[in-house]
């Protein structure tokens, strides 16, 4: 499952980052490391990009970037 599949309001834990992901290093350095919890806040009005909350701040990325981030869904 990837971050792209999470619905707004759902939480997940990062399992791995795809190798093709451009700016992979940037994503890592912004705190999206393995084991980090992510919450999807919302999608932009037109469905893409999405807004996530990670390490206490809000970050936006596109669906195709979210697709490279594999997560394990957390249930409440």
């Amino acid at each position, binding site marked *: 499952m990837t971050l792209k599949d999470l619905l707004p309001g759902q939480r997940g834990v990062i399992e791995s980052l795809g190798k093709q992901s451009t700016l992979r290093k940037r994503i890592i350095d912004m705190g999206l490391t393995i084991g980090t919890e992510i919450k999807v806040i919302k999608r932009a009005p037109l469905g893409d990009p999405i807004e996530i909350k990670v390490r206490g701040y809000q970050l*936006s990325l596109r669906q195709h970037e979210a697709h490279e981030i594999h997560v394990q869904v957390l249930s409440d």
Partner: protein
Amino acid sequence: MIKKTIALVGNPNCGKSTLFNTLTGSNQYVGNWPGVTVEKKLGKIKRSDHELTLVDLPGIYSLSTSTLEEVITREYAESGEVDLIVNVVDAANLERNLFLTLQLMEIGKPMIVVLNMIDVLKARGDVLNIQKLAQRLGVEVVEVVASKAEGIETLVETMEADHQPAKFIELYSPKILKLIKTIRESLKISVSPNLHAIRFIEEGMVAALDHGKDAVDLSALNQTVEEALKDNPLDRDMIISDEKYRFITEVSRDVLVRNASDKPTLSERIDAILTHRVLAFPIFLLIMWGVFSLAFGPIGAFAKTYFEAFISSVIGVIASFLSAIGVSDWVYALVVDGILGGVGSVLGFLPEITILFIVLSILEDTGYMARAAFIMDRILRKFGLSGKSFIPMIIGFGCTVPALMATRTLENERDRRLTMIIVPFMSCSARFPIYAVFAAALFKEHQAVAVYSMYLLGIAVAILSGIILKRYVTKGITSNFILELPEYHWPTLRNLTLHTWDKIKGFIIKAGTILVLASIVIYVMSTYTFALQPAVDAADSIIGSIGTFIAPVFSPLGFGDWRSSIALIVGFVAKEAVVSTLGVLHGVGNAASAGISELAAPIQNAYTPLSGLAFMTFSLLYMPCIAAFATLKREMNSWKWTLIAIGYQTGVAYVVALVVYQVGTHLGF
């Protein structure tokens, strides 16, 4: 007197610029980094026995990726010039900010951490143990609220005090620590050995080659690293960041007690409305409408009326003073007709331009720009652009130069190039006087419509250009959109004033130097012939002859008048000069009561509404002014692309103005 140079480093949106402004006030100046022309902002704090020079570095998230701004920061922070690193940390966003803190500490220089936005943290109900944080990091930590100027005195005293170099925190796993030691010993880099050893683990050869090390020796070392990390589940570029963040997570649990309630913060509630599925676009349009109606609507017009009256009376006073002291007719004419007529016709727009810059500054400071980018990304992508292109486009309504620099947030070079080609189509404030003067003269009933349609035309051309150019410029690349959505902030008065004053100062200086000079040159060249005889008819003058020679080029566009050609050429120096040149050439200012209205009659004689519209269109779209041109060259770092850009812009201007005029003529306007 003790002198110190201090590097101010921090994440984007950590309030670093606000802190810099609070610390140095108006005692700032701008320079350039050697070799690269990224803006370098310096400020001084002078006290009885200390002189601190603060260098405001670009906002960055990390030292380990290789964007230009990160390289500049890393190289400067390591350099011998810096005595102290001041790392600004957004306390309300501790974990991500501490990542850069740990990297900066690895440089091994004296360093202090400034915790900014403590008020936001407290308002959220979080509790941070600052002493414990200082203890865990081993560096001094000072808390401030830069926007309210709280804690500044303590900060200055701390900056003046002496500090030990930051200690290397052994936060890594034993395997990594051992590798760092091995690499450090074989690389023998004297400056920041730990930082470079760590970079070698992450990036391999690239990092060490920076220091002129021999690649042959290094491949063995690289092999050692590969071997040591073979069984590690994480990739080389991930392992260091991963361990740093493990440490940060642990420290953060130790020092920070988060408010457990899941109640949305004020910022989140505002965001829920501003990026709402249904409301987002109506609100966005309302905000944009607000920006323009504040600047160019009744308030702007009201301010302008009084300001113009003021300018006219100043010109009147100067004129009567000149006649009173009995200067020769020639000097009188040069000053009153040439300089005052030309410059006065532009200066009158100062109030409206000021309001525009204030409103744009507010948009930038509050954090709304990132949201606009967020909601517009999907749309802009269709046009080969990115949501991130949107921020420079809005800034472009103020001035093209900072707008081109704002394109640096676009990570992809080709994305960025396309954005830089279309940004100048966004009508900058210097072009506004052209539309205002022409609309007032030719479209009395529909002035506002005529002016706004120019702005819309600029946006439309920018978007269409995206569609056309994306095939050539950004073909086949995957672009990115990784953008932090910062907390909303109230803009501070100090930032607003400094920012706006900066822009207005530029406008006034331009009016006082370039426009004065251009007006004098134009005036003199329009009163003499090539044979240096006084010209009876301005059309026979030097400038008249040049204009007449060029004019046929513009005839198909409806403005084959020689004055139009000259105004457009001078407009390359500064777009304001289009109006000031027309002012000089049409002999405005004669009555010693120069004002904008006086250009109305000559414009009505020289243009029909249709040819006036074509002229406005051409002025909107053709190549930007010389300052923007220089910025374009610098940022694109390629003559080829710079020339393509301005060639394209001027070509588009010609074609669109031609279409406007020819189609309009056939339709019988």
